[in-house]
C-alpha cells in the first residue's frame, strides 16, 4: 500500500509548477501593463513640459517685439495671466538688470543669448524651484522668472500625487524634483529619461517608477493557483475512481479465474480419489465373474473378490462424503442481515456495465425503489451476478434490436422478489426441469454449476430461486428472499 502522501506527491508537484508558471505569467503581464502605462504618462509629462518651455520663449519674443516704454505695464500683467511667471525684468541700454542680487548672472545670460541669437536659460536656482529665461534684444532685453512648482497645474498632471513615482528636471548636476515618490529600493524599476527639445531650457526629464511586491496582483495569482488545484483535484479523483473501478473489475475476474482453478483442482482430486476404488471394484468384479465361469467355479476366490469389491465401493462413498463436507458452506443462513435488494442489484449492474455496453443493452428496472430483504450480502450479489450474466449471455445470441433486459423488484407478502427477464432464445422445454441440476448446462464450455450454486445459496438464506413463467420469449428467473423486519 502506498502512503497517501507519496501517492499525491506528483499531483502536488504538478500543481506547484502550474501555479508558479501561471503566477509568473500573471505577474509579468501586470508588470508589462504598469510599464506601458508609466511610459505613456511619462511621455505626456515630457510633452507638457516641452510646451511650457516653448511658451516661455514665445512670451520673451513677444515682449521683445512689442517693447515700448509703456510696455512695463504689460510685463507686470503677465504673472496674473500665467501663474508660473513670478516676475518679468526689463533692461535697456547701458542700465543694469533691476535685480541687484542677480544682475551679474542675468548679464552673463544676456550676453550668451546675444551670442547665440536665442533665449538663454539660467539654472542656478533650479534647486529652489526657480528658472530664469533671458532673451537679449533691442531696444530692450527681458528676463522671465519661472516658478517650477506651478509649471504644470495639478489638473493637467497625469500622475496621481501619491503615486510611487519620482519625476525631476535635471541639468548640469542641478535638479528640481517635481514629484518625490519612489525612493525605496527593491521591486521592479521603470525608467524614463528624455531631454526637452527646447534649446533654451534643455532639461532632462527623468522619471522613475518603482513597483513593489505589494503591487503585484496576488489575488489573481492565488485565484489561478486555486483554479489549478480544483482542476487537479478533479482529475486526481477521476483517476482514483477509474483505478478503483478497474481494480474491482480485476478482482472480479480474478475471483472467477480462481473459482475455475479451484474447481479444476477439485475435479482432478476427485477423479484420482475415486479412480482407485473404481479400479479395484472393476478388477475384483471382473475377476469374480471369470472365476464363476470357470469349470468348476472357484467359489471361495470369487467370494473374496466380491467382498473386496464391496469394500472398495464403500471407500468410494466415503471419498464423496468427505468431499461434500469439505465443499459445503458451513452456515450460509447464519450470516444474513437486512440488505437493500435494489442497492445490491445496482452494485451488480455496475460490475457488469462493460458487458451491458458491449451488447448495447440498457436494463429496465421496475417496481419498488427499496425492498429490504434478509440475505448474506456476498451470496446475494453472487446470485444476482449469475442471473445477470446468464441473461446477458442469452441476449448475445439475438440481434441487437431484440435485446431487452428487465429487472423487477417487488415485496410480495413476507418475501421480497427480484425477477430477471431477458428476451434471449429462452430455455428449451426439455431443459426446463433440469437447469438447477449440478453439471447440467446448455452452454458450450459451461460447467453447469452457476444456477445450481445460486439455488443452493438462495435456499441456505431461506429463500428460493425459480424459473418464472415468462409470457413472451426469453427466460425469466425469480429470486425470493424473506423481507427484513421493519427497523
Amino acid at each position: 500500500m502506498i502512503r497517501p502522501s507519496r501517492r499525491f506527491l506528483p499531483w502536488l508537484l504538478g500543481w506547484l509548477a502550474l501555479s508558479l508558471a501561471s503566477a509568473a505569467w500573471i505577474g509579468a503581464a501586470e508588470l508589462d501593463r504598469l510599464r506601458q502605462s508609466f511610459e505613456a504618462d511619462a511621455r505626456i509629462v515630457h510633452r507638457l513640459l516641452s510646451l511650457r518651455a516653448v511658451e516661455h520663449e514665445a512670451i520673451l519674443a513677444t515682449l521683445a517685439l512689442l517693447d515700448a516704454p509703456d510696455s512695463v505695464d504689460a510685463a507686470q500683467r503677465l504673472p496674473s495671466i500665467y501663474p508660473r511667471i513670478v516676475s518679468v525684468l526689463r533692461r535697456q541700454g547701458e542700465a543694469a538688470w533691476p535685480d541687484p542680487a542677480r544682475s551679474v548672472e542675468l548679464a552673463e545670460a544676456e550676453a550668451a543669448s546675444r551670442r547665440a541669437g536665442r533665449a538663454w536659460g539660467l539654472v542656478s536656482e533650479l534647486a529652489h524651484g526657480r528658472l530664469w529665461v533671458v532673451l537679449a534684444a533691442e531696444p530692450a532685453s527681458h528676463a522671465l522668472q519661472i516658478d517650477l512648482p506651478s509649471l504644470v497645474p495639478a489638473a493637467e498632471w497625469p500622475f496621481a500625487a501619491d503615486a510611487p513615482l519620482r519625476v525631476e528636471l535635471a541639468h548640469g548636476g542641478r535638479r528640481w524634483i517635481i514629484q518625490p515618490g519612489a525612493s525605496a529600493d527593491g521591486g521592479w524599476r521603470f525608467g524614463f529619461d528624455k531631454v526637452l527639445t527646447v534649446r533654451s531650457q534643455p532639461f532632462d526629464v527623468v522619471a522613475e517608477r518603482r513597483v513593489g511586491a505589494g503591487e503585484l496582483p496576488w489575488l489573481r495569482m492565488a485565484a489561478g493557483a486555486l483554479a489549478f488545484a480544483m482542476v487537479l483535484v478533479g482529475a486526481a479523483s477521476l483517476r482514483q475512481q477509474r483505478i478503483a473501478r478497474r481494480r474491482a473489475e480485476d478482482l472480479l475476474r480474478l475471483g472467477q479465474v480462481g473459482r475455475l482453478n479451484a474447481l479444476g483442482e477439485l475435479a482432478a482430486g476427485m477423479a484420482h480419489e475415486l479412480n482407485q476404488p473404481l479400479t479395484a471394484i472393476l478388477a475384483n468384479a471382473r475377476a469374480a465373474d471369470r472365476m464363476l465361469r470357470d469349470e468348476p467355479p472357484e467359489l471361495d476366490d470369487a467370494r473374496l473378490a466380491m467382498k473386496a469389491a464391496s469394500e472398495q465401493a464403500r471407500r468410494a462413498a466415503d471419498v464423496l462424503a468427505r468431499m461434500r463436507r469439505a465443499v459445503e458452506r458451513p452456515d450460509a443462513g447464519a450470516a444474513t442481515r437486512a440488505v437493500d435488494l435494489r442497492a445490491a442489484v445496482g452494485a451488480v449492474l455496475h460490475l457488469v456495465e462493460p458487458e451491458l455496453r458491449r451488447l448495447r443493452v440498457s436494463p429496465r428496472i421496475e417496481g419498488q425503489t427499496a425492498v429490504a430483504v434478509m440475505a448474506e450480502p456476498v451470496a446475494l450479489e453472487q446470485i444476482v451476478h449469475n442471473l445477470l450474466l446468464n441473461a446477458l449471455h442469452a441476449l448475445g445470441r439475438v440481434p441487437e434490436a431484440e435485446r431487452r433486459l428487465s429487472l423487477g423488484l417487488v415485496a410480495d407478502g413476507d418475501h421480497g422478489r427480484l425477477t430477471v427477464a431477458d428476451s434471449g432464445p429462452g430455455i428449451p422445454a426439455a431443459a426446463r426441469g433440469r437447469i438447477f441440476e449440478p453439471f447440467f448446462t446448455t452452454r458450450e464450455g459451461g460447467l453447469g454449476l452457476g444456477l445450481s450454486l445460486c439455488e443452493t445459496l438462495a435456499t441456505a438464506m431461506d429463500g428460493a430461486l425459480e424459473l418464472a413463467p415468462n409470457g413472451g420469449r426469453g427466460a425469466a428467473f425469480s429470486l425470493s428472499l424473506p423481507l427484513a423486519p421493519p427497523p
Partner: protein
Amino acid sequence: MNEDCRLSPVIHLVDDDEAVRGGLAMLIGTVGLRVQTWARPEDFLTGFDPDGVGALVLDVRMPGTSGLAVLDALKARGVDQPVIMLTGHGTVELCRRAFKAGAAEFLEKPVDDDLLLDTLQKAVRQHVRSRERNRADRLARERFAQLSEREREVLGLIVEGLTNKEVARALGLSPRTVETHRANLFAKLEAGSLAQLIRQFAELVEDGDAP
C-alpha cells in the same frame, strides 16, 4: 533361480494402492499368469529379477517415485520386459511421454479387464519370443567365434552362393582343402543343412569378420 522358473512368465505389478493391487492381481491370476505385487517402486527396482520373462505394470501416479521415473530407471538398466503404464488421469502429454520413454502400452484406470489381460498376454508372448530369439542369436555368435580365419572366408563365399570349386578358385586353394574347411565349419556351427547355415549365419558374416 533355476532356468525353469525363469522361463515361466511373471507379471510384476507396481501400485501404491493395496486394493488396486489386490484386485488387479486376482484378475490377472484368473488367466493363469503368475503375479508379483510391489507396493513401493523403490522395492520393486531393487527386488525384481531383470532376467526373468514376463511384463511390468506400473501406476503413473505414486508417492515417492512416479511411474515415469521407474520407467526411465528400467530403460537405463537395459531391462527388456515390456512395460504397461496405468493412469487415473491420462492426458495426451502424459501418454506421449510414456511412449517416448519406451512404454509398450498406456491404459487408463479403471481398466477394462479384457483389454488389460489381452495386452498382458500379448506382451508376455512377445517377450518370450524375443528372449528365445536372443538366445539363438547368442548361440550362433558363440559358434561363429570358434571358426578360424580361413573357415570364415570360406563361409562368406558359401553364403554368397559359390560352389566348392568356385570357392577354391577364389581363394587359390585346392577343392579338396575347401572340402575339409567346409566339413569343419559345418561341424563347428552345428548346422545340419546349407539352408540352416545361411539362415543363422548370413547376418553374422555380413556384420564383419570380427564379432
